[in-house]
């Protein structure tokens, strides 16, 4: 299988789909000549021309609204948010319109729209460029929300996203654009609503999505050296949500630690913990632990930023607690 970066895999999926389906168009700031500020759309203007690769004014609400209009009338737009942080400006269009149009039109109207861009932080861009929005968007019925962590998944889930008849919030792990992995050629779609067991283990289940998956794989290595066998689950899909894979794992390990970069209150980890206690209460040997970002807007100074994000040490400590080793 060819090896490519997360960035290349993402672009490949979009380009393949644009090749296959000429109703797919792209809108966003700096996506044309510049190839995107994160170099995701590089070369697409040359390939598909300015009618399909639309460099927009700085108007997130406006161009997201335009994309909704396109989607309602037969196109399949992909909107690039330069970063998900700027999607707050389009939140009315996304939440009040895209998510509800099918419902309030009594099923007459569909919005096959993908909104994508880098999510999360860790690269010293401070509070206004660092949000992790999976909990936020995951809250709203009518949206599908995914957060792939590997090149294979970002390609496969983008193919699925573009073909999906409903609006998809496609949260890319911005910090992982340069990471490499094997990616199958061709139409290798990955379905929504199916978590991935990234590493098998028997003593504790570690659950995350996005760039925290890689952190968990590192932690699992560390734990293995201490004789603890950790299973790592990559959620991949936030809504729809795969409870079955998590429950099956917890039935085996009897312990779970959920890790996320976003804040703890009203978050994905809270939901995962709730699902585990609802569906596997009798299998648990310890309360489910959550390791989250600190309850502050992300700071700029590197030392403060590190203090605000989940660390390997915090995760190991949480694992020790659920194993009653402290």
């Amino acid at each position, binding site marked *: 299988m060819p090896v490519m970066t997360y960035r290349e895999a993402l672009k490949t999926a979009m380009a393949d789909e644009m090749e296959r389906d000429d109703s797919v168009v792209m809108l966003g700031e700096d996506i044309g000549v510049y190839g995107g500020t994160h170099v995701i759309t590089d070369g697409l203007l040359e390939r598909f021309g*300015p*009618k399909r690769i*639309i460099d927009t004014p700085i108007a997130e609400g406006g161009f997201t609204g335009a994309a909704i209009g396109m989607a309602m009338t037969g196109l399949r737009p992909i909107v690039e948010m330069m970063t998900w942080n700027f999607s707050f400006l389009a939140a009315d269009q996304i939440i009040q319109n895209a998510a509800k149009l099918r419902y309030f039109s009594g099923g007459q109207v569909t919005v096959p729209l993908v909104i994508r861009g880098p999510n999360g932080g860790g690269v*010293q861009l401070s509070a206004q460029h660092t949000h992790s929005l999976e909990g936020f968007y995951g809250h709203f019925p009518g949206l599908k929300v995914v957060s792939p962590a590997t090149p294979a998944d970002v390609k496969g889930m983008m193919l699925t996203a573009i073909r999906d008849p409903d609006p998809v919030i496609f949260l890319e792990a911005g910090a992982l654009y340069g990471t490499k992995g094997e990616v199958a050629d061709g139409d290798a779609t990955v379905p929504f609503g199916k978590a991935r067991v990234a590493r098998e283990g028997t003593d504790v289940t570690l659950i995350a999505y996005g760039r925290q998956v890689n952190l968990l794989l590192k932690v699992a290595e560390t734990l293995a050296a201490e004789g603890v066998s950790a299973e790592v689950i990559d959620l991949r899909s936030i809504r729809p949500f795969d409870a079955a894979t998590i429950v099956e794992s917890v039935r085996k390990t009897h312990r779970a630690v959920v890790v996320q970069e976003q804040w703890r209150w009203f978050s994905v980890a809270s939901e995962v913990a709730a699902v585990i206690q609802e569906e596997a209460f009798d299998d648990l040997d310890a309360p489910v632990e959550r390791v989250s970002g600190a309850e502050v*807007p992300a*700071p700029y100074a590197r030392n*403060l930023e590190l203090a605000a994000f989940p660390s390997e040490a915090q995760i190991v400590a949480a694992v020790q607690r659920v194993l009653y080793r402290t």
Partner: protein
Amino acid sequence: MATETGPAPTGAIQGAFQAGVVPQDGAAAFRAPLDHVDVGAGTITASVAPASAGDGGLDHETLREMYRFVALARALDERIWQLNRAGRAPFVVSGQGHEAALVGAGFALDRANDVVLPYYRDLALCLVFGLSARDVMMSVLARAPDPMSGGRQMPAHYGSARLRIVSSSSVVASQLPHATGTAYAAKLRGTGQVSLACFGEGAASKGDFHEACNFAGIHRLPVVFFCENNRYAISVPQSLQMAIDNVADRAAGYGFPGVVVDGTDLLAVHRAVGEAAARARRGEGPTLVEAKVYRFHPHTSDDDDRTYRSQDEVKAWRAWDPLARFEARLREVGALDDRTRAEIAAGVAAEVEAATDAAEAAPFPDPATFDRYVYDGG
């Protein structure tokens, strides 16, 4: 702004624009989406501020002080780039090319009373309003004494409650509605303060611009909207940002005047903003002043501008370097000679040096304080 299909600009900036050095904004090279080709065909409704002449009615002392600020902003900006290249400063947003417009605007205000809402390119304006080189360096290196945020916020997001520099957001144009609020508060409380809100032509595409202008027009607020039009928003040329030549033309739709000014002519900007501020203080409401400038460096240290603009274009604009232009003017009117210029240059260099040394010696913020400032009492 002259485009291939547009009418020639009129008035004072015509000289500059017809000199042949002001290039196309990229539209010619770019295949515009949806075959929209009418860029530049709009009618100009803004007025065009006259070019400055002589000393602009200012004394030599003031002219030298202005010059010093332009030179300080330039030198500080240069040093920040050096620190970035050396791996010591993670991030730079450069204001080179905008300095004269900002110093002209800043000096047109009451620096002891007025309120400014700067854009991230507005180092020069913030220096005029009292921020020191040392303050700036503390923020660039994210050190504990950073007066903007104590190392919480990215550099170039200026803010000082003490100096009436309103803390700025990364999200472009959010300062424009804020400015209508600061202006409303000033009007309600009778403080006599004028608010100056700065933004780029790209930011003017956001709904906030419309909402702010509309509100300011309705309430005749004492606010000057100051657009620094440098023809690009990161890579996106003006022709893909709007179908008109001048952001200032939009003012007519909100019921207040728009003025276009050559932003490389410090004294012309000084006069245009001075008139706008005077109008605001008389209770006659807002003005939109649009300064045509150029950014000499890439958008930020994360940008490579070679992909979207020719280096010939950048070079051509260098002939309109506002620092050089202002220096030439000061020499012409006898406000600057080799000796005074050397004195100013030495003072500026020493200030930048001392600021850098102080910041590099300063500690990083204490990690134990990372959750301070989230709520009152924190």
